[in-house]
Structures are given as C-alpha cells and as structure tokens.
C-alpha cells in the first residue's frame, strides 16, 4: 500500500524546488548516458534507481514517485529500443520497464516510510518532552489561584502555541494566556465541557479539550496556534486537571492544619492565661486572707513581708494585663506605627536610658561602626524592642557579665544584636521563646517575667517588615537580633 502524504509543515515553494531538483537529477543522468554510449541499459536503470532512493530518503514519497515516473519516461525514450520513441518493440523490454517503475516506486515507498516513522518517533519524543516539562511546571506552582493564572501562559511557553485559555466549571471563570482572543470564546469552552469531548479545528488552528480527571470534568482547555495531536491534548487535559485538584487538596490540608494549630494555640493560650493570671492572684489572696485572719498570729515583720508580696503581685498583674492587651492590639493589627527616620545611635542610647535603673553597674558594650545609620521605624516601638532584649539579657545573666549591643548594615536592613553571656537557650526552646507566655523552663525559678515580652518584640519587629531571631549556645550565652528597614541617604533627620 502506498501512503501518499507529505509533511504538513513543508511549504509550497520548498516543494517546487524539490520537484525541480528531482527532475534535474533525472535529466543529468539521462544526458550523461546519452552522450557516453558505453553502458548497457541495466546499469542505466540502476543509476536511476539509486538517485530515486536517495531522493525518497530525504524528501519523501511524493517527490520520489514523481521522479520515478520521469525516469521511466526518459529511460523508455532514450535507452529502450526503438530509441527516440515512447514505443517499445521488444516485449521483454516492457517487462524491464515495468519492473523498473515498480521497483523504484516500491523502494521509494519503503525508504519514505522508514523516514516517516523516524520523523513520527521524533515528533512523539518531542511531545512527551514538552508534556513532561509542562507537568514539572504545573507541579511547582503554589496555591490554586496562582496555578490557574499560570497554566495558560505555561501552555503557550511550553507548546509554542499562539494563545491558550482554560475554563473552570466550578468557578465559572476563564483564565487566559494574554489578551482575549475571539476564537477562544467562553461559549466554545463551555460547549466542550458540555460535550465532554475533544474538538480539533485544523482550518482555524484551534483545539479544545476537556480537563478530565477520571470520569470527572473540571473544565476545558482551548488552544489557538499550531494544532497539537489528540494524544498531547488529552494528556494536557489530564495533567491540568490533576494539578488543579492537587492544588486544591494541598490548600485544604493547609487550612485544616492551620485551623487545628489555631485551636491548639488558643487552648494553650487559655491555659497559660489561667495559670499566669491566677498565680499572682493566689499569692495576693493567700497573703490578704492571712492578714485578715482573726487568729492574729503574724508578727510585724511577717505582716510587712505579706504586704510587700501583695504590692509586687499587684504590679505583676498590672503588667500582665497591659502586655496581654498590647499583644492583642498588635495581633489584631490595631497598632499604627509612626514610621519616621530614626538614628540608630539615638535608638540605642534611648533604650539604654530606659534600662539605666535596672542595669545598675553591669558593663555594657555598644558596637556601632556607622553612627549615621538610619532606620525607618516607629521610635517608641523600636525602642521598646531593644529595651526588652536588654532587660532580658540582664535578667538571664550574672550581674558582672557584660551585655554587648551592636548594629550593622545588612542588605536593606540594619541588624541590631543584643548579646549576653547567660546560660544559653537549648535548641528545643529557641523555637518556643517567641511563643506567647512561654518562659525558659529552668529560668522560671529565678526570673519573674510575664512571658509576653519576646512575642511582643516579635510582633513589633514584624510590623516593621523585619524579623527577629536568636542564636544561642548552651553555657556560652545568647544573641538576640532583629532587623529594621534601613533608610538610605538620610543624615539630617532626627
């Protein structure tokens, strides 16, 4: 069976050139043998055959069939007796002529088939490669919205087509690669979903395919530009459907996880509030009831001790309420930052002024290479963070150990650090200390904190767009550092 097909991609002028070259080859061979007279007809026939095979291997069947016919005519006219006519005297030569024609066409067909198969294999390999690349891109996308917006653009980039659009049934929404092409109309896309089958329009170079996952149709896909194979379209439809489902599933898992985490935090928070608020209340209640006791067993020293405890615990409770309220305001985003250019050296000296009373005679080192550095920050809040870190360093380390405060430029931030030589924080705890109400397990005996200082500091730093972190080594101390956005080219502001 002969398969007469030429590659779709070959353009008409190229084809004409090929026919011309084939004809020229036949004429050259004919001319050569007509003028040499020294070869028998078999040799001449084989020479034609060789040329035809060569052409069919390179350019396919149609050119080689044309060449075979031309060669048959010239062979008959110039070499088979009676020479110079298209008639054949010897019946044997009829057989020779037809054998020649049949052989050349069959050989052409075989070599052209081999060539087509190679081309087909190549095309498929290319398609599979593109599908693979496409699937990789789809899987690397993040949340469903990003994914849906990215898919049409990725189709265009990966499959080198003109434009692409996908229609999502659930959202009744169309996502496009670029501008709205009238050919990729919403009605067409919806019609494909309704029909649940592929549609390829060679005339207008349009393909439509459903996005199918098993028996479920999620939407449809429309492509304008070079027509893709059915297999490619089908695979694309499935890939896109899988990617969309996966993105939604991942998002769902994330939401459930977040909700669960939120619940867990809430109950931990309630527990912590119960404990942290009841603890000072317990000391106060026990002291007061003891003072009120009719038994009058307390001496003056004991009475004064209990009154002092009540006083201190009132302050502690007040601090707790204040910090809890501040935390809640920060979390709710109710705190408006008064952003202004702030000199780093003023920030540090301001914080040290606040801490003066607490620090006593403790040695403080300030390392500041460029005092001209400015940050964009809310002076009061930023100072609060620094004060808290300095007080923390003070509380958690021996009184004669120095605290080092430094600030340096790092990318678009000024990185502030407060380093102490305290006992350090274990790796496990480093992850927890910025959580609300958490207090270092071993430190709770000695240090009175409310456990909200670091979470507040974290909330303030994050409101500025920076981050806060701790680096610590057991037995050697801890370094808390945070970044505030740098203000470039400002020297004259406060």
């Amino acid at each position: 069976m002969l398969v007469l097909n030429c590659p779709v991609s070959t353009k008409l002028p190229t084809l004409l050139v090929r026919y011309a070259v084939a004809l020229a080859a036949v004429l050259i061979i004919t001319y050569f043998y007509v003028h040499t007279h020294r070869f028998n007809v078999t040799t001449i026939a084989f020479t034609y055959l060789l040329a035809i095979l060569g052409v069919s291997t390179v350019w396919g069947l149609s050119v080689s069939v044309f060449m075979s016919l031309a060669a048959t005519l010239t062979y008959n006219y110039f070499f088979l007796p009676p020479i110079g006519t298209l008639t054949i005297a010897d019946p044997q030569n009829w057989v020779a002529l037809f054998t020649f024609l049949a052989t050349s066409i069959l050989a052409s067909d075989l070599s052209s088939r081999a060539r087509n198969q190679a081309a087909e294999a190549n095309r498929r390999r290319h398609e599979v490669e593109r599908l693979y690349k496409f699937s990789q891109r789809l899987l690397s996308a993040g949340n469903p919205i990003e994914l849906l917006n990215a898919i049409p653009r990725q189709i265009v980039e990966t499959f080198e087509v003109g434009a692409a659009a996908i229609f999502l049934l659930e959202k009744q929404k169309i996502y496009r690669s670029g501008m709205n092409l009238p050919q990729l109309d919403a009605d067409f896309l919806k019609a494909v979903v309704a029909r649940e089958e592929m549609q390829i329009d060679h005339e207008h170079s349009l393909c439509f395919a459903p996005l199918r996952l098993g028996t479920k149709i999620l939407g449809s896909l429309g492509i304008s530009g070079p027509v893709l194979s059915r297999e490619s379209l089908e695979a694309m439809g499935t890939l896109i459907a899988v990617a969309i489902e996966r993105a939604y599933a991942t998002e769902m898992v994330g939401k459930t996880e977040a909700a669960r985490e939120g619940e867990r935090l809430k109950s931990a928070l309630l527990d912590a509030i119960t404990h942290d608020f009841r603890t000072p209340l317990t000391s106060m209640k026990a002291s007061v009831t003891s003072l009120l006791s009719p038994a009058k067993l307390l001496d003056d020293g004991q009475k004064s001790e209990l009154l002092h405890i009540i006083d201190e615990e009132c302050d502690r409770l007040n601090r707790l309420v204040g910090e809890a309220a501040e935390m809640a305001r920060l979390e709710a985003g109710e705190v408006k930052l008064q952003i202004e250019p702030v000199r780093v050296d003023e920030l540090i000296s301001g914080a040290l002024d606040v801490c003066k009373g607490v620090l006593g005679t403790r040695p403080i080192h300030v390392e500041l290479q460029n005092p001209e550095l400015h940050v964009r920050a809310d002076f009061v809040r930023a100072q609060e963070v620094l004060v808290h870190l300095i007080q923390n360093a003070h509380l958690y380390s021996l009184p004669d150990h120095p605290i080092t405060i430094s600030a340096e430029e790092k990318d678009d931030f000024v990185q502030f650090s407060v380093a102490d030589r305290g006992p350090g924080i274990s790796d496990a705890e480093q992850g927890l200390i910025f959580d609300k109400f958490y207090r270092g397990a071993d430190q709770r005996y000695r240090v009175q904190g409310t456990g909200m200082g670091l979470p507040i500091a974290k909330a303030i730093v994050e409101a500025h767009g920076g981050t806060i972190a701790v680096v610590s080594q057991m037995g050697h101390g801890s370094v808390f550092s945070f970044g505030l956005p740098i203000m470039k080219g400002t020297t004259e502001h406060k």
Partner: protein
Amino acid sequence: MSTPTILVVDDEPQIRRVMRTTLSSNGYTVIEARSGEEALEAIRNERPELVLLDVNMPGISGLETCREIRNQSDVAIIMLTVRNSEHDKVLALDAGADDYVVKPFGMEELLARIRAALRRTSSAEPVAPFISEDLEIDFERRKLLVHGNPVRLTPKEFDLLRHLVANQGKPLEHRRLLQAVWGPDYGDETEYLRVFINQLRKKIEPDPAHPKYIHTDPWVGYRFEPDAPASGKPKKK
C-alpha cells in the same frame, strides 16, 4: 510534740514566700522545693509530715511527683492547682493525694485542710485487730497483711479502713465517713470517698470489681462486712 514540718513545692517564688510566712506564723516548720525533683529529695532527707504540692510545674509534673512520693512515703499530700474540674480532682486523688485545694484559696481554708490532713484518728478508742483467712489488720501497730504479705496504706486510707472496721456491718453515710476521717469541715466531697474506697479495695480485695469486704450501699454509703465464705452474698443485718 515538735512542730509539724510542711514541704511547700511550687515553682513560683512569690507563692513560696507567702506560704513560708503564713505557715510559720501558724507554728509549722516550712521547707521549700522548686520542682518535683527537689521535692523528692527533700522528702527523703527531711521527712516532712505534709507536702503542699503545686500541680502545674515545669519538669516533672505535680501529678507525676505525687505518684513518685506515694511510692516511697506515706506523707500527707495536699495538691494545689488552678483547675477546678471534677476530673482534675479525681486525677489528683488517684495520684495519691489526700486532699486538693484550688488556687486562689483563702489561707483559713488551706490551714483547715492542713489540720485535717495531719489529723490522725489513732488517738480515738482502740479498735480490735481484724483477722480473716486472707486479711490481717492490726490497728494498734498500723499494720496490714494481705495473704500474709505486708501492704502499705496511706494514713488517710488507714483511717478510713479503721473507721469502716470499727463499725463492721453498719452502713456508714458519706458525710459521716468524710467527717470522721478528714474532719468536721468536710461532708460533700463524695469523690474523695469514691477514690479512696477504690484504692482500699485494690489493696485488700481479692477481686476489687466484686468486693467481699467493702460494700457499696447505694444512696447511703459504704459498709465493711466480710462475706460468708459459703454464701458469697453480703449478710444484711
């Protein structure tokens, strides 16, 4: 008689300060521990008469500490906690505590509970030893043998058993039992009885699910009466 020693176990320094001041003004000797580990060591070394134990502590928890203390000592234990649910009370009593006080508490209440926990009924009229085929209780020497093996009871468990045996065959109302064993301030804490009776049954009954010594009289209370070996049914008086 020397002043009783009380061990205050709490990670909060302010609470320890209040306790030290108030309890010593009430004539108790006070020692302190900041954690379960320190408490266990203090109990070994200083042998306090009573432990005030905070439930909520870093490191080993209050409940865990309580169980550990019970493994090595009969000391009276009162647990202090911020949670006030029935479930938490039962957990504390199950862990071996004699009593349970919810924070914040009035000092008078705590002192009353301390007195109750330290109270021993041993000074009351003597009760004759109880001896059966598998059980031997000597109230004078506070000794209990089950199948010939010595079994340890906490002072409150012992007092409860003593009161039940002293009134053998009579159903004892919850309120009466509570007041006799814990003190006059008690009466409604039926969960205490439930937990302690369970613990007693676990220690003396061959099959705690089908008691042959300590019987429950529904809506009334508890009754100590050995089953007749043959009938297997409690005799009604």
